[in-house]
């Protein structure tokens, strides 16, 4: 379930429930860059922050950014950059803030889905939406969207970020071991999952238009 336009103060926002993951995303921009030295005179910049709230996992997570969160922030930013037309607004920044309220495996994919919808909600020009879904290998079978328990006990986890209309992959990570044949199968399954998510993203944007949600 994805809902667009949920935050009053953000320029664009989305809330996603993906399995037991509950993630909120707010997008601001394009707006002035502070500190000024970070501004790029030829293109806009994309800044992304992925953060998990302390009660999102069973053992309290320290609010300070962990290495995993910094990695995921970087990965999501790089997955969104090919999609957003940053060269149209030089000297500005687009800020993406992701807060994970409840995590249960595959949260970086869900976060990327929410970020895409939030960017579209904010009216920021993009070449294509980015849909993401994780494939994995659990008990020697290729499966789609592993949750936390399956990830702990499983053999591989592969998050995939995909632009459905341009048919390009913007995020691909693999945690685990698999054979080349399984790898191919995983990618195909993952892309199928991304296409399913894309339909849900479009539905969220449609509802935003007709649902009369005002900010």
């Amino acid at each position, binding site marked *: 379930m994805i809902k667009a*336009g949920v935050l009053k103060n953000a*320029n*664009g926002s989305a809330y996603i429930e993906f399995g037991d993951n509950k993630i909120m995303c707010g997008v601001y*921009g*394009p*707006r*002035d860059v502070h500190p000024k030295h970070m501004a790029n005179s030829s293109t806009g910049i994309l800044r992304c922050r992925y953060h998990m709230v302390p009660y999102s996992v069973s053992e309290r997570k320290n609010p300070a950014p962990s290495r995993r969160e910094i990695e995921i922030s970087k990965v999501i930013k790089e997955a969104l950059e090919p*999609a957003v*037309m940053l060269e149209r*607004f*030089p*000297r*500005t920044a687009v800020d993406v803030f992701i807060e994970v309220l409840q995590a249960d495996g595959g949260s970086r994919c869900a976060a990327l889905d929410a970020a895409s919808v939030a960017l*579209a*909600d*904010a*009216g*920021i*020009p*993009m*070449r*294509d*939406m980015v849909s993401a879904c994780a494939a994995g290998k659990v008990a020697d079978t290729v499966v789609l969207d592993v949750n936390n328990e399956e990830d702990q006990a499983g053999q591989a986890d592969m998050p995939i970020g995909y*632009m*459905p*209309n*341009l048919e390009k992959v913007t995020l691909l990570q693999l945690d685990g071991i698999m054979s080349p044949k399984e790898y191919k199968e995983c990618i195909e399954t993952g892309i199928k999952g991304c296409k399913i998510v894309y339909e849900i*993203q*479009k539905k969220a*944007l*449609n509802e*935003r*238009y007709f649902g*009369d949600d*005002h900010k």
Partner: protein
Amino acid sequence: METLHLVAPGDVITTDTGFMRGHGTYHSDDGKLVASVAGVVQRINRLISVRPLQSRYAGEVGDVVVGRIVEVQQKRWKVDTFSRLESVLLLSSINLPGGVLRRRSAQDELMMRTYFTEGDLISAEVQQVFSDGSLSLHTRSLKYGKLKKGCLITVPPSLVKRCKNHFHNMLCGASVIIGNNGYVWISSMEVDQEDQILLNPRDEPDTTREKDIAITREERETIARLRNCIQALVARKLTLFDTSIQYTFDASRGYEVYTVYVQWNLR
């Protein structure tokens, strides 16, 4: 009601190459016309554009805007007008108190904060649009300048209709400035007209002229009712211009001021 063609970024609008590309679209590598924003497709003859769900204000020369001063720099102010980059108000683009025409001196530069300081609201006109999209404003007319004693309400800029005149004296006794950038200023009529007279022979900024004009309860209610009417129009995604606000105001006369807000904004 015609069927709305909703698109998401990346959706192919048409593969026909005869169409011209408008806002919110781009040509993909294989010649297809693709949407770049989420919104409704609008087709006017051979021009196809996509109107996004919401977007920041993109300025045109001659637009009337209401903005808030965010920074005081060397010879200019930075103004927030809900656009991508902060707008610029040069010291040479404002009217000095007293209507004096002279070159701005170093003394004027030091006194900039007495003219406008951070947090002030101003009405201005767009003089120039720079190549990166930022706006240069000016207040070189008596109707522009600092706004006092009123209420600001922000609406999506796409709902503001482009008119010849953006300064309206409503029949209900309040005056409304509908900025093209979506910032709408509502104030009582007397205050606005008083500040037009800036004859101060001693050549000092007129901040000392804060007349103690008490705003009556009726005026405050009118301003509050107007604000709620505008909120109601925004909630229903209707265009904002003086007639639409006036009609909504007249229609709301039967209700209490706070009921207007509650009934027309909550679903």
